[in-house]
């Protein structure tokens, strides 16, 4: 039994599960109602967008790159979709959703082209497009917001509706997770991402195209941001120009916590899911445990740092164990 769990979760992920449990226990001691089903549902639902976007970030980081433009891409596609909804209230919302995704895909493809064909390092490309896409959001909206009463209820129901009692937003996140799991594990293109991140020369020797992989991961990341943009604006029933500012660091943090190597080539989507949930729990727990909001940032920083340190220490211990086992 233990073996099979260990097989599903790698060591690092098991550690993270342990950390999540410890965190939950600590929070529940202070606020016993934290673990009620309704609250758990809310936490997962609150984390759903992070999970989607972190999944795209995960692919980019696997290649050894980084996508700093996710926040701006979310803002732009969310704004575009909301304005469309405002302008054409009769348009079917799933068409709008599709358009939102396509807009995100286009922005992602732009990033991908810069990296793949322009040979611009990912961090520079996305540092640039982070500003550019944000600026375009302002240009598109002329600085205006789209507020709740300007959106149709069908639009705001996209994430809120329920299927089998589960909120749509959560369902979407689960869906993305499963697809992503299948993609990186059971498709050729998915494995090629690991190849590029692991060893570029070796990938070249076996005919894996760096260009293709780079273009692909940024485009996927963009598409997921497009989806997230629609979800975000619909869920909060507002499209503002500052939507998702700073969100890129949250997604990177989810990956780092989930054990994805920032240098590329190793990591799993399960780890990313756990990392995102961990962050989601902290975000939700802090207001619940009745702390001054001014303390939140410091405590969040401290917990993230502590989790990273704990994770690394356990990892190092495991590696030592493995080495000793090999020596025997």
């Amino acid at each position, binding site marked *: 039994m233990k073996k099979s769990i260990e097989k599903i979760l790698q060591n690092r992920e098991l550690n993270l599960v342990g950390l999540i449990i410890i965190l939950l226990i600590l929070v529940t001691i202070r606020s016993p109602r934290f673990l009620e089903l309704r609250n758990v549902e809310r936490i997962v639902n609150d984390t759903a967008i992070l999970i989607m976007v972190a999944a795209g970030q995960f692919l980019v980081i696997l290649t050894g790159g980084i996508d700093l433009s996710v926040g701006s891409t979310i803002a732009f596609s969310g704004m575009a979709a909301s304005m469309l909804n405002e302008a054409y209230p009769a348009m079917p919302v799933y068409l709008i959703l599709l358009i939102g995704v396509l807009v995100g895909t286009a922005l992602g493809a732009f990033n991908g082209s810069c990296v793949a064909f322009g040979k611009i390092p990912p961090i520079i490309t996305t540092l640039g497009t982070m500003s550019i896409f944000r600026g375009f959001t302002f240009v598109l909206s002329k600085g205006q917001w789209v507020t709740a009463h300007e959106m149709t209820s069908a639009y705001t129901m996209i994430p809120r509706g329920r299927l089998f009692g589960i909120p749509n937003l959560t369902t979407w996140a689960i869906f993305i997770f499963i697809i992503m799991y299948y993609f990186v594990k059971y498709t050729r293109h998915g*494995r090629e991402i690991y190849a590029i991140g692991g060893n570029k020369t070796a990938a*070249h*020797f076996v*005919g894996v195209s760096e260009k293709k992989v780079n273009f692909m991961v940024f485009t996927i990341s963009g598409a997921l941001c497009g989806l997230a943009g629609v979800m975000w604006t619909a869920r909060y029933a507002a499209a503002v120009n500052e939507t998702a500012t700073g969100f890129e660091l949250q997604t990177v943090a989810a990956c780092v916590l989930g054990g994805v190597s920032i240098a590329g080539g190793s990591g799993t989507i399960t780890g990313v899911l756990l990392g995102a949930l961990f962050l989601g729990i902290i975000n939700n727990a802090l207001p619940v445990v009745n702390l001054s909001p001014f303390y939140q940032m410091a405590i969040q920083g401290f917990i993230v740092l502590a989790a990273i340190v704990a994770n690394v220490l356990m990892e190092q211990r495991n590696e030592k164990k493995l080495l000793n086992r*090999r020596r025997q």
Partner: protein
Amino acid sequence: MKKTILELKDIAKYFPGIKALDNVDFTIRTGEVHALIGENGAGKSTLVKIMTGVYQPTKGKILMEGSEVHFGTAHDAQAAGVAAIHQEASMFTELTVTENIFMGHHLRKKGGTLDWKAMRQHTQELLDRLELDINPDTLIKNLGTAQRHMVEIAKALSVDAQLVIMDEPTSALSLHEVEELYKIIRQLKDEGKAIVFISHKFDEIFEICDYFTVFRDGQYIGEGEVATSSVDEIVKMMVGRSLGHMFPKKEAAIGEAVLDVKGLSLPGFFKNVSFTLHKGEILGFFGLVGAGRSEVMRTIFGIDKKSEGTIVLNGHEIHISSPRLAMQRGIAYVPEDRQEQGAILEMSLSHNITLPQIDKISPFGVLNKKTEKTITEEFGNKMEIKAANWKVNANTLSGGNQQKVVLAKWLATDPDILILDEPTKGIDVATKAAVHEFVSEMAAAGLAVILVSSELPEVLGMADRIVVMHEGHVSKVLNRDEANSDNVILAATGHEEGM
């Protein structure tokens, strides 16, 4: 019946500043093992990369079974039936053995889903065929050097290839694995496949190859049947002159003990290793790959931490916790892996060569270009490095020339104790003789040398005494006059114990 499978016509490949290949013709036939011979930097690996689609030629034509082909990527070449083992290790260390073997040509089920079960099974079969005891699910980072190379060989075999190219496949293998490889090569030949085999070791070429082609300075020099040629003829084609003595060992007066190692242990790697090194002595370390020799040396150099034992230097016990401290004590270590540990690939030759002593040659920490230049030129030329100039990056050099850079950089530090770990790996015969001569001269001048090598003739020809290791412990210490290939190999394979 032999028929032409791949033909290169008038191929050229230019890199910035240098012509790697020029006017090259090359023909490969089925059912034949074809040796590609040439000095370091002659252009062999470049040719391999052109045949496998990694590089595209600057000019020239490639004909596959008579019709012209273009290999735009490695994928195209693979699809056309060309498989290769490249000179420099090219593994995905974070991925499993199975995945490394199938990357680029994963097996798929009908719908396109990857078929891990089938791939795993195929991997197991390949590993069995090579008589390797490795779990297909092991991550490459947990394998030793020799095992990694064997996985590379398995990878080449996993492609259903008409032509298998092997670029110095034996440089990291020990005797047993080399035998295994020969067996595979013979099998392939019997199946009517074509093999290109690159090596700087003539015994291997005479053992396994049928035909040879020689290159020099990027140009075709000549070809012939191996059976009707002599080593001397081939060497003459290679370097344009006959070769002197391969192991110009100078008699040196053995002085007092400088390094005394007692009971050194590192669990899982080596146990209770003791030996003494004297001034003027060349102490050979022989063993199979994985016997723990490199780990002992790394421990002495302060990279790995010993768990037990003492290291006594010039009569004082020392504790070395970093390479920096080891260097301050006059120890230099030429590491085993030139690409990872030896050279800094994206730095210029000159910066590479002066790096270990950069503090020493920079008064008050300020760089001195003139001193750097003098050192670079002196040792770079002594090692016969072939490059466009001293400012090019190390990664533009051929494998053997990179190795020479690593040698130059450590010889330039003027150490008291020089540890050489497979120093002539991938170096051509002529330069090898030069390196041997140089090391011998330095020993004669009082340097204490440890020579770790998997090449038996090198150890027998150069060492004053030979420490033989087997599975992590010293199985025998032999004097120069009592050592011969039989008793050394016996001790290395664990068949003969005792001091």
